[in-house]
């Protein structure tokens, strides 16, 4: 098998908050078709890492490079989050951030914003092109809802969805931005085993059917071990291990980190 195309390349990423180093020269790569995972105990700096990659924080040091297929490489450091998303990198949030007073369908429609173009004047005039674009937005969004199994609740308020469904809605919304790399921040947090199983399948399905590479943060090792490869492990802001699930399982530092946490809890 030929070398897979490298999509995201993070080199020596460091993020300081005042005197505190939340992420300490972490490097990581995601290739086409992969479901990569970033795991680690609470407070290891995973979410900060995500925030740096998606432009919410501007990293102190290091490079974040995006290699879209067929397009020149882009450095993401310091880019605004919306630019990052436009580039084809979408994310979900650890503590769900839906637009709670909008309907489920509208939430996904927001994801289409950066792929559509109607401006103020055209929205007022509402010419044929705009009407067609609106139709396309509704259409695509509805299809995405179907894909994540939320078509039935399209007209409900997002805040009224059950927890698991809200997580899936976040994924659908992110997918509406047409990413080639999807970053999921603890997608299984707070789910029961049944829901987690469904989510497993959904993630695999997205990866296969949509040709979207996935980088996910997970706290729960089990989910990760089933579906991801490679896995990166962080602790106290540093990367302590990387490799296949098997390698990670046997890695002494990982065992230490997780055992230590286990006794804490």
């Amino acid at each position, binding site marked *: 098998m030929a070398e897979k195309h490298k999509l995201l390349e993070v080199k020596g990423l460091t993020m300081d908050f005042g005197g505190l180093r939340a992420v300490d020269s972490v490097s990581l790569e995601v290739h086409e078709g992969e479901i990569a995972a970033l795991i680690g105990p609470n407070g290891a700096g995973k979410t900060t890492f995500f925030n740096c990659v998606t432009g919410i924080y501007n990293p102190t040091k290091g490079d974040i490079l995006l290699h879209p297929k067929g397009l020149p490489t882009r450095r993401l450091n310091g880019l*605004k989050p919306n630019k990052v998303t436009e580039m084809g990198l979408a994310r979900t949030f650890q503590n769900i951030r839906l637009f709670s007073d909008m309907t489920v*369908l509208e939430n996904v429609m927001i994801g289409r914003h950066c792929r559509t173009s109607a401006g103020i004047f055209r929205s007022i005039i509402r010419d044929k092109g705009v009407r067609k674009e609106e139709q396309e937005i509704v259409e695509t969004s509805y299809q995405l809802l179907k894909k994540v199994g939320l078509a039935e609740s399209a007209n409900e308020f997002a805040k009224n969805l059950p927890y698991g469904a809200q997580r899936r809605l976040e994924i659908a919304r992110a997918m509406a931005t047409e990413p080639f790399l999807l970053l999921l921040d603890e997608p299984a947090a707070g789910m029961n085993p049944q829901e987690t199983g469904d989510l497993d399948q959904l993630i695999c399905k997205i990866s296969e059917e949509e040709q979207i590479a996935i980088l996910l943060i997970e706290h729960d090792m089990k989910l990760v071990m089933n579906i991801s490869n490679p896995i990166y492990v962080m602790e106290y802001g540093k990367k302590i291990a990387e490799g296949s699930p098997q390698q990670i399982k046997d890695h002494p530092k990982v065992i230490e980190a997780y055992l230590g946490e286990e006794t804490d809890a």
Partner: protein
Amino acid sequence: MMKDFKQSILVSIWFVFLTFPLMAVRVNTTEQVVEWRWMSMVWVAIATFSLSYAWRYLLARKQAKKNEEDISHGKLQLLMEDMGFRYKAMGLLLLLALIFPLVFDTYQNTIMISALIYVVLGLGLNISVGLAGLLDLGYVAFFAVGAYSYALLNHHFGIGFWSILPVGGIFGCLFGVILGFPILRLRGDYLAIVTLGFGMIIKVVLENWSDFTFGPSGIANIDKPGLFGMDMNIDSSTTYIYYIMIALVVFTILITNRLKNSRIGRAWIALREDEIACVAMGIDMARTKLSAYALGAFWAGMVGVLFAAKTTFINPASFTFMESAIILSIVVLGGMGSILGVILGAFILILLPEYLRAFSEYRMLAFGAAMVLMMIFRPQGIISNIRTKYEYKKLTEETEHG
């Protein structure tokens, strides 16, 4: 039962204590007299005793509703969401609006024009506050920009109403962009204080820059809107302005409604709901905020022109923070984001005090209290935002077959 009673007693004792110095005593240090008003304490006690019951009942009901989830739609709300009824109601309203001046006298028309001016102001502010969630406490500044652009251009160059009407809107818009550019990075509450500051700065400039704005004495003899050079007396020109205003309101409703249900409108609402998620979904925050702010300003500028033409005299005293507060309460009470609600809000807040002149002293007191109570018990306003229904099932079927 007993517990409630005890609690209410405590509440009323507390309020008697609280209001004692301000309500029971009146010291006139100019005349050197002290006036004791013990009766007011009795009233306070009775009023707070009964209000505390109402308060607890309403809070409990709010809690219960929260648990029931989303069955909060009242009858009025449901009626309003019925499209057929809405069209009929709108048609009827428009008809009523059109025959209004034929039935009522000039005075009623003038009052109605004032109310309609506030409808447009409310709808404009609704874009930035209601839809995009940008609290603007200096909105009246844009109103002033519009009014002064007409007054000055008319005074110096004699340019007529119709040519300035769009120009006023564009000036308002431009000001929105100029002021908005540096400050829209700020978080919600900072934005509120800075816009408040801008509102005050504009007033200070209008007062001080006498060479340009004629200072506090204002500009008089502004032309009323002309109609093919016809000479109009006060009655017919009021009626004429009334119809212009109706047209402007209809125009505003049409456009804001279209914007609300567009790609841009959705981005505004998303921005209000969650800024971070919004940018993460690829929406350019600065641009979206700026567009909301500037479009809000556009309407204020436009209706400012009409205001100047209507009163024929303007001075800085018409553009105070209180005006901004009144417009804000129209939006809040009517229902943030809801076009229908804002219209209703404007009519209630402007017409009611006009017809209940006897209570006009209590007007601002009631505004303030209503703003607080609305936020607590009915944050969605009198008529909450009516959700757009998207047609998708049919389309989906079509694509699947085709």
